[in-house]
């Protein structure tokens, strides 16, 4: 597994990018050159300089420092969203696919209802209902996204539950726990990882979008989407303001998308030494 991972250049590169970004975010206080909250109104929209490597924003705050501190909400919230989605969707999907019958009927009808709403509108509705708050944004994202995973995992489970190796396990009385964890989970994990790493990009963009609209992370907390939102106001006079957060989002989201493709290749056992 490790050898196969190291052989895949895309996987190594993208995982490195994501890890480096995450580490920078974790150690933000030691890396950031300035205080991200310190406003210096006399020095607003400053050009690139030694003291402010990426210039300053509309309140004269260091953009690089804000970018570095912004990793925490951007990446952290996205990962949290995906964990919640995977957990809820995975559990529901496994239950529906493995036990069938009434359990499946109830879960899948709820899923059908969830899938019939346009996702963005649902997020707005949930956030509007529960109030503008970061927790609510995550809740809303998990709430609309789990149904996709439940349905996909159920399909995966159904595809494998009648395979002979599971029939054998059931025949000789292997505990259900072993069948679910050792047989079913790894079998559907490769599809799941691909979808999850693609969707983490979606989550980042979604959180950024909500912040951009002023519904997510609130000022003065630095967040990439919120930074773009502030930069938008001076689109014509200071267009360079958008470059830094814009590129940062593109790089992170692309890294996750490429990582999804690479991980699928790695997790397929038949790709050995290919």
């Amino acid at each position: 597994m490790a050898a196969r991972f190291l052989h895949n250049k895309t996987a190594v590169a993208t995982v490195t990018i994501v890890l480096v970004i995450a580490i920078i975010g974790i150690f933000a206080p030691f890396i950031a050159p300035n205080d991200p909250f310190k406003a210096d109104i006399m020095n607003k929209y400053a050009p690139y300089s030694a003291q402010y490597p990426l210039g300053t924003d509309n309140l004269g705050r260091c953009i690089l420092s804000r970018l570095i501190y912004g990793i925490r909400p951007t990446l952290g919230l996205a990962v949290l969203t995906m964990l919640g989605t995977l957990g809820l969707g995975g559990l529901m999907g496994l239950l529906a696919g493995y036990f069938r019958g009434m359990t499946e009927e109830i879960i899948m009808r709820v899923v059908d209802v969830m899938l019939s709403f346009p996702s963005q509108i649902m997020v707005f509705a949930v956030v509007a209902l529960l109030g503008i708050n970061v927790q609510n944004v995550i809740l809303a994202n998990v709430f609309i996204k789990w149904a996709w995973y439940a349905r996909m995992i159920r399909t995966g489970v159904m595809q494998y539950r009648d395979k002979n190796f599971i029939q054998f396990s059931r025949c000789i009385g292997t505990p259900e726990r072993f069948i679910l964890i050792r047989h079913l989970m790894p079998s559907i994990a490769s599809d799941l990882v691909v979808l999850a790493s693609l969707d983490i990009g979606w989550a980042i963009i979604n959180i950024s979008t909500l912040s951009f609209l002023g519904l997510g992370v609130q000022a003065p907390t630095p967040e990439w989407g919120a930074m773009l939102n502030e930069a938008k106001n001076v689109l014509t006079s200071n267009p360079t303001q958008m470059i830094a957060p814009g590129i940062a989002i593109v790089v992170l989201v692309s890294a996750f998308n490429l990582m999804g493709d690479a991980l699928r290749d790695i997790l397929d056992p038949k790709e050995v030494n290919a």
Partner: protein
Amino acid sequence: MLEVKNVDVSFRSERQTRIFGTDRTQVLHDISIKVDKGSCLGILGESGSGKSTLGRVMCGLLKPDRGEVYIQGKPVYESRAGKKQLQQSLSIVFQDYTTSANPRFRVRDILKEGIMAYERKLGKKVGQETEYEDLLKTVGLDSSFLMRYPHELSGGQLQRICIARAVACRPEIILFDEAISSLDAHTQVQVMDLLKELKEKLSLTYIFITHDLTSVTYICDNVMFLYKGRITEYLPVSRISESKDTYAKQLLNSIIVYEDEMTA
């Protein structure tokens, strides 16, 4: 040892006459058989005769509409104890070896699942490492196979691994659901010799589900013909030529014709 009594099985039909129709197609009609310890029963029948369904009923995976399966006198579908008894004493080898083993498991993990079943039965751990080698040796493979994935094995090798896994649970009965039909003639003979040897060594009981008469005559003591879900004939292999069943006759004839062609 294993007894099937008055079993009926039906499935809901795909094509219904009414929208919410509940028409069912009956695939097994009043099947009763008895398998004695140490014997080998062959279940013969053409495609769609209900052989595999009967196999699924016997290994406890499909609850029949009517009737019951008994293992050493205990009902399998009625009581938990009977089910547990069946799980501990019956093992299975499938026809399609490509899906018989989890493609993400190494040979070692595949065998480990069987050994785990044996450990559950025993209630304690067994000497692990030599166990794997012994198992591989019983099916004529060496320990270099332990770290391989299923797709790195040939069909015959993988089917041997499946047999080793079935043997690893230390069952009393092994059910072969067309287990050798998908192998080529040469490997079939090898595997059947292996099975004969194992049967002697471990005093096993075999149930062979197949449509291949030659393999039945080679290994089985008794043979049962299944036609459209009904038992049409049940007799010892030695008297198979006396069979009055039309399907059995057809099968026998086809072999004789084949041999005539060979000598001609």
